[in-house]
């Protein structure tokens, strides 16, 4: 397996042999991966592959049973979530977990809970509004009244307020129309380039994720089964077939390939 990046930057997140359990059930078993500074790294996989658990374990909401997570050289596994946020990782959860009865502006300001410099918080607020003008328009409205796409924008904008070096994005396309998905991913790309936020992106929608990402991992049943440059993954037969839904021609024995075993097993 190659672990090369075209323009090699520093590894800021390094996960080694991580194992997490839900009670007695293993959710991720021995996951190792690296995220380099400035990259968009995506983790693909079907429902129940352990992608969300992986993110939850990084952000400290779940504690790992084994393994290490080092971020900027410090080991952060098993720390309380507020310390992880202070160290520069923010988790934008799946399903747009916002504070429904608070206003949009209050939601965004709570993203800066770990910050205390008022001037820079105000500047960050303007920055968030410049990426999501609709949030500025709706700032005094209760967040629960926003549409799904706007709530996703709010969740990302709120995450930005902690000035993260690494943003963990869990299924940003969940439940959004293809058009809105494009829009959100465009903003994710812009944030990555303009604000220098490294992104770790978990997606079921492999197509948009691979288009945006530099590097990708494929997870299945709690393990990483494949990793490569996003472009290479995009062209790989296995990924095309099992995650991108590209039809393959029937082979000489008259079987569709989906009846066969994946090559990584």
């Amino acid at each position: 397996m190659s672990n090369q990046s075209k323009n090699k930057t520093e590894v800021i997140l390094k996960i080694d042999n991580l194992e997490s359990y839900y009670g007695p059930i293993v959710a991720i078993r021995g996951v190792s991966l690296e995220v380099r500074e400035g990259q968009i790294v995506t983790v693909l996989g079907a429902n129940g592959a352990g992608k969300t658990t992986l993110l939850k374990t990084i952000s400290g909401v779940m504690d790992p049973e084994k393994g290490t997570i080092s971020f900027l050289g410090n080991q952060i596994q098993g720390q309380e979530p507020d310390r992880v946020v202070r160290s520069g990782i923010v988790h934008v959860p799946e399903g747009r977990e916002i504070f429904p009865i608070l206003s949009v502006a209050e939601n965004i300001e709570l993203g800066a809970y770990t910050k205390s410099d008022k001037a820079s918080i105000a500047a960050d607020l303007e920055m968030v509004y410049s990426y999501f003008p609709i949030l500025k328009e709706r700032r005094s409205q209760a967040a629960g009244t926003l549409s799904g796409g706007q709530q996703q924008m709010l969740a990302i904008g709120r995450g930005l307020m902690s000035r993260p070096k690494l943003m963990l994005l869990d299924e940003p396309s969940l439940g959004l129309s293809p058009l809105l998905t494009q829009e959100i991913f465009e903003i994710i790309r812009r944030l990555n380039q303009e604000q220098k936020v490294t992104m770790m992106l978990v997606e079921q929608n492999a197509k948009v994720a691979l288009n945006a990402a530099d590097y990708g991992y494929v997870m299945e049943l709690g393990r990483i089964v494949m990793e490569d440059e996003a472009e290479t993954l995009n062209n790989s037969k296995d990924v095309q077939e099992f995650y991108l839904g590209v039809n393959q021609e029937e082979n000489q024995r008259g079987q569709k390939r989906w009846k066969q075993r994946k090559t990584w097993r």
Partner: protein
Amino acid sequence: MDFIQLLASGLANGCVYGLIALGFVLIYKATEAVNFAQGDFMMLGAFICVGFANEDFLGWSFWTAVPLSIFFMSVFGYLFNWGVLRHMFGRSQTAIVILTIALGFILRFAAGTIWSHEPVSLETPYAGKDVSFGGVVLGIDEILGVIVTIILTISLFIFFSKTKLGLAMQAASQNQLAAYYMGIPVKRIQSMVWGLSGAVAAVAGILFASKGAIDPSAGLLGIKAFAAAAIGGFGSLPGALLGGLIIGIVEPLSSRYAPPGVSQIAPYAILLVVLIFRPGGIFSQTQKKKV
């Protein structure tokens, strides 16, 4: 005239119920647990103040005793969550309910042992003084109770809507997981909410004990306040106060104008009616999550 007199004293009682109900709701919203010892928190706050201020005990100045006992109760609430409840995390609701009921018993008997089971009243500088407004006679203690409740409500409102800590408390109660993701130390915030509701209980207790006698079983008043909180809609702070006021006003009016016994049933009868016709309470705050 009779009616207005009853209304005014009912209002003063209602403020005490409302403040205890406020304590219920604060804790329920922040931690999704119901503190059945809230009434006993009120009783304990009152007895601590009695212990500091009354001549039979320490006999300190009333104005030092009040802030001291409020402070003591908030520390007590904080430590109870920090030292006991936090370790029950993940257990069933029933376990937490039983734990708080047990705490109520412990506090009741502890208070009885320290301050005896005889009713005492708090010695205040304004005890027994009245003001008369065109035939309606009001005790200073009653007027003070209403004023303190109003001030406390306004300052709580400002605290929750304007300060960072208050917003974080709201956030932690609306979506605990998201609050974690934002780096809000949810566990510490929950302990602070327990501290806050301990302080509110102490204020209620001081108001109660300065209006009349208090004994260690006064905490059973908490059941009435629980009804008040449910009438208001268990997740709403203004609802809790309103529920308290309704019960406070209905009690003296029904004991004056209705057959004997009705006044004891009235709070629960109202609760029943509210639950039938508006199950979420008067100010129900339920919202569905968008998918």
